[in-house]
């Protein structure tokens, strides 16, 4: 017993050493999160060689606006993956929420529902769709113990079908300015959506790192049984993360609608954005096994995808081939992320 006490006395001296080491380890984690930064640097050089337009403010602002909507969905999916789940239906929520919001605020002549709510109420409805879908998914997966993959795959089709059915497959145009604002407005040269998405990335990143619940998300994703044994309210937090993910997907849907000034019939499900969502997260080092990855990596994954798309557009690649090339580039990026990230994505 005396030995034990001696060591306890000795600890204050060790304290500063522990903290210095902890800072160094934190720095290492930062480097891993930023592993894609050199790749992005290379893409910037390639882009500027291919087209003189590439490095102009207006082009980069446009890229920023294009990737903002995707980026918000990636934040949502990354949260869900980190806690050890998966949600394929975010792409349908991305479309359906915007469709419901728009449907409630435009007249029947434009295929609206006819109640013609204020655009602000429409946005509330859009967020409510996100909450509802996330809650249903969370309940089914967490409380109902259904397999997350197959359940959300089913939800993807159901929600995508509702999106088509409620407007007979029409796209909704002539949306009010307030509804379009988030996705289309600029603050000086910078798109508002880019600013908002950046704030969401930073905010969620800080939350995951410095908030008690953020840390619990990592603990639950890393070892759910241990998190439960440590007294965490695992079910509640998991359901909460599904809700948060769907709400973020809805916000992404609002941005997308504003950017194109319409809710396209195929927004989300029809476009199949979920592949890009997962690709961005995984390229950015978010482990599909849960418990690992962060917002810095996810953000760089999103930027990388946006730049690739833009360079292919500017490079005048045949439209019919763009899909194949984009997919190939994503697969290469996945392999590179695996190499750069070392064991991070290996297991």
């Amino acid at each position: 017993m005396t030995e034990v006490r001696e060591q306890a006395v000795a600890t204050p001296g060790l304290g500063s050493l522990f903290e210095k080491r902890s800072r160094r380890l934190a720095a290492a984690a930062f480097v891993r999160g930023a592993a894609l930064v050199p790749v992005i640097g290379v893409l910037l050089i390639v882009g500027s060689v291919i087209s003189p337009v590439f490095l102009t403010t207006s082009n980069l602002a446009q890229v920023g606006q294009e990737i903002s909507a995707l980026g918000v969905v990636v934040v949502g999916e990354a949260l869900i993956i980190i806690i050890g789940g998966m949600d394929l239906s975010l792409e349908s929520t991305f479309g359906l929420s915007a469709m419901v919001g728009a449907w409630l605020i435009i007249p029947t002549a434009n295929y609206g529902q006819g109640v013609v709510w204020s655009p602000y109420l429409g946005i509330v409805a859009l967020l409510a769709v996100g909450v509802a879908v996330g809650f249903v998914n969370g309940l089914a997966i967490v409380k109902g113990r259904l397999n997350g993959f197959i359940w959300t795959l089913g939800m993807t089709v159901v929600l995508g079908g509702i999106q088509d059915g409620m407007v007979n497959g029409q796209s909704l145009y002539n949306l009010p300015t307030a509804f379009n604002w988030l996705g289309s407005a600029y603050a000086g040269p910078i798109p508002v959506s880019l600013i908002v998405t950046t704030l969401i990335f930073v905010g969620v990143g800080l939350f995951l790192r410095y908030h008690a619940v953020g840390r619990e998300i990592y603990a639950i994703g890393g070892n759910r049984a241990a998190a439960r044994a440590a007294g965490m309210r695992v079910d509640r937090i998991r359901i909460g993360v599904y809700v948060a993910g769907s709400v973020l997907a809805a916000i992404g849907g609002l941005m997308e609608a504003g950017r194109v000034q319409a809710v396209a019939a195929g927004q989300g499900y029809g476009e199949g954005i979920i592949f890009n969502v997962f690709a961005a997260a995984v390229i950015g080092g978010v482990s599909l096994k849960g418990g690992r990855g962060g917002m810095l990596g996810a953000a760089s994954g999103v930027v990388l995808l946006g730049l690739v798309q833009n360079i292919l557009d500017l490079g005048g690649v045949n439209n019919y081939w763009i899909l194949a090339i984009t997919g190939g580039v994503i697969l290469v990026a996945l392999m590179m992320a695996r190499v750069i990230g070392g064991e991070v994505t290996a297991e």
Partner: protein
Amino acid sequence: MSAPIQVTGQDTPIIEAIGVSKRFGSTDALRRVDAALQSGRCLGLVGRNGAGKSTLVSILSGLQSPDAGEIRFAGDPAPPLDDVRAWRRRIATVFQHSMVVPQLTVAENIFLGDLPGDRGIVNWRTTRARARKLMREWDFDVDPAVECGMLTVEQRQIVEIAGALARGTRVLLLDEPTAALERDGVRRLFERVHALVAAGVAVLYISHHLEEVFEICHDVLVLRDGEVVMNAPAATLTEDELVSSMVGDIDAPLSHAGKPERGGSTRSRKTSTEARLVLTDVVAESPRGSLLGTSLVVHAGERVGVTGLLGAGVATLGRVIAGAHDYQSGTVLFEGRPLPPGRPDAALAAGIGYIPEDRWLEGFVGELGCAENMTMSIASRLAGPLGVLMPSARIRAAQPFAGRLSLVSRGLNQPVAELSGGNQQKVTVARAMASRPKLIVAITPTRGIDVASKELLLAALAELSATTGASLLLASDEFDDLQICDRVVILVRGQVFTEFTEPPFDDEELISATEGLMAAGGHR
């Protein structure tokens, strides 16, 4: 058990490590280790957690290559690492955690990766016949047609050994093979090992239980800090010599004088008569031992040990109190208030700290750092306004526990998965202590950890209850652990059979009570 018989002389060893060294980062896991294993002999490999046992095992079994030195099989150089089949033909490791595929039959598992057949078409009749023949030859009693998921831990071990023998392997590495076996299973395992060794198989036996090493090993190799500090015939050694060579001179007093506080000194401690935990007729179903109407009272500040045979419900009792396991009927009152079944968060909030049985499963989150794991139960308490919780706050909160438990890590942010087993367990224990519990439920807290860490953990638990008045419920089948308790309750088939109230507790009496026999010392 009679003294092991010398079967062979000094032939060329069937497997040999020559000057093997291995570094991980800045630590020397192994330094110029020489080890040799002869056919028909059993070599015990002992050492504290982190001494390099696991590294040596993984190098000997071809999972890692040494930085320096080499492995030889019967004098020939070892095959390249990626020739897994060649390695498996030469040496087989039976790990603590079963590696059989539960969905496949015994016969399939035995021939896994090499099913008898023709050009990829499996011949099931031959497969089963050969499995049966093998089982007969070695006198193993497992039906080859049964799915492995249905087997007991002991039977799965047999399947793994049989698989090794089927590949022609004549070197077996047994890594903590008794950790999950009950007493009779251990005895039968020893008989099988004796038979294997007598038939010329070489066995490397890794264990924290020194009495087992003395019982079945011819020779003992002791590793300390990555070096061989002793390699001698078991018959020439005493248990004390072995312990002091494992622990080293500096720590030696701990292993002798530092025996966990025995009953003698605990009796002076004041135990309140206030009932802190009251279980009444609790029924909880569990495949690993149900509770069938268990009643128990734990007083404030009291340390109660619970033990029994495998399947008697010892672990289930601990899990029910900690909220980790549902119960169907009966009541669990903590400080007069009922605990909701299956709610670990409610148990924690009520003041119950939990040290789970399986630390890999419930004890920690491997990817996260030590400090984060140790403060996992108190995150909301440590958090500032809006739930903000800086890593430095966790480190500050974790440091006293890291010190008290002598946690060895490269800093408190090192992921727990990278620590040795004993240190992982210290993190788990710290997690339970950090919540300032009024009752700690500890289930087999010393399983699979070395002697010195074991005593340190028990001492820390005893100290915590002495200084804070926390009660302790220690559910364990390790009788040594129970010696820190004021009282030991024996469970037989899910019910309290008897209890012992006078420490120190006699192992013989405890054993016969767990078997359901009323011993002389038992008080009803």
